[in-house]
């Protein structure tokens, strides 16, 4: 492996979680995220020669990912719009800047996520399973559990907040 390819792999490995999260936010679809992530990785490797090493890598990778998302949208332009999460250009750019700004710090924090998820119990864990293991949206989860969709949405918001609190506690050394 030549030094350039090795460097590209190294940079991509570090950037990949943030790029994945960004693409997931723009598409809202697990399978599409993975496809676009794969295409982005290939584009990064193929165009690594044009990357200015004096500049940060993550913003460059995020811009490539954004192009890949745009390509995917063009290819699927006849898909009903509600099937994909869409943001305006300014919002997409703002999100990319914010992801770049906090990615490194958050990545270290999220190392505690697995431990915190294990602490979820009862209905919170159940809803989390449906949302993230089965990939169901709140409306469907509500059907299965006999709840109002808004109840499930609020529960998801609350459990994510709880997870963040747990992560921060562990980050601060005060394990719950």
């Amino acid at each position, binding site marked *: 492996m030549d030094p350039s390819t090795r460097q590209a792999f190294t940079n991509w490995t570090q950037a990949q*979680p*943030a790029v*994945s*999260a*960004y693409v*997931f*936010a723009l598409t*809202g679809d*697990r*399978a599409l*995220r993975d*496809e676009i992530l794969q295409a982005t990785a290939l584009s990064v490797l193929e165009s690594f020669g044009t990357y200015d090493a004096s500049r940060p890598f993550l913003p460059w990778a995020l811009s490539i990912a954004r192009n890949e998302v745009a390509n995917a949208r063009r*290819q*699927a332009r*006849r*898909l*009903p719009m509600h*099937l994909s*999460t869409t*943001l*305006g250009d*300014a*919002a997409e*750019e*703002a*999100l990319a*800047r*914010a*992801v770049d*700004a*906090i*990615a490194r710090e*958050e*990545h270290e924090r*999220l190392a505690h*996520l*697995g431990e915190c*998820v294990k602490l979820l119990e009862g209905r919170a864990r*159940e809803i*989390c*399973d*449906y*949302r*993230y*293991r*089965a*990939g*169901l*949206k*709140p*409306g*469907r989860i509500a*059907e*299965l559990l006999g709840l109002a969709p808004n109840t499930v*949405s609020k529960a*998801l*918001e609350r459990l*994510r907040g709880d*997870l*963040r609190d747990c992560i921060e506690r562990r980050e601060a050394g005060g394990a719950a």
Partner: protein
Amino acid sequence: MTDADRANFRALAHAYLDGTLVDSDRVRFEQLLASDDDAARELARLVLLHDALDREFTSGVLASQNARFDAHLDADLDTNLNTHVDQRQNGRATKRRAWLQRRVFVAATLLLAVGLAWIFATTGRDASASDVLARIVEALRSGDRTYVLRAIEGDGRMRRREAAFPLQEKRPPAPIDGALVFLRNPASFVLVRRDAEGHEVVSGSDGASAWIVPAEGPVRVSSDPARFRGALPGGRLDIPFIDPHADLSTLARNYDLVVQKPAPAAGRPDARIVATRRPDARGGPKEIEIDFDAKSALVRAIRLVNLPQAQGGPRAIEFELIDDAPLSDDFFQHTSHHAKDRAVLEER
């Protein structure tokens, strides 16, 4: 941003990620996101958590912890779907097999469901399975459905962009990955695909006539509803489209059928019919899977596995339901899919 603003934005951010953000809030959400760095960072933190959670549950340690989840969902279901159907073998007519070889594609799986209902209803086998299948048929016959086609590589179910084709092919088959199929019973469809050059081609039928809108040249319209069925995805197999009135029992006779419960922990929240081609049956995919909502009987996905490869094309194809919203009344007429000044050629 005040604490109240922050809480408000946070609620919108969660709704955005869960796909529940209403249009009236979307503009405000995007404006805040684009104009307020704190808001953008709030969303970024949530986005990173959201993605990490998704990966934790699908590929992390938690992915293997599924027993409790399965048990709960079982309790949700009020019907036992585990039924193995061992249909008696009937005599096979050569002509019918030849017909089947040509006609196993999208509609085949839908026809299978209808056929199964017929078999169950007439043989008195397991009542719960019969009920389930009857509901599937009912769901198939009502409302509009939009499916996206995915070409799948082999048994690994790995999605790919285009299907491979044998070297002896003079030219590759048109890619079908990403094609859209819009269905309305009885026998109305619109297929949006790309030809081998990447140009969009739309074909369809309103049940009374058929039409095709090529990338260039005149729109062609035929009074024969079956006229342009060869352009359907899998057209190289010469498969007709959905036809609930076709002979259903032939298909059912050639497959062993199993109805499975949902397995959400394995990433399959829907119930499934698995049809395995009998050893003595010829033609068609070796296996057909139909995923359906156990409660509403809505067919969410159809997979045709191990398709005949003699004429090239993908090894397997998946139809994934992406929308069941009503389409406009004129959607299945060609005039909805081309400019008004486009030349139209009426075929006799």
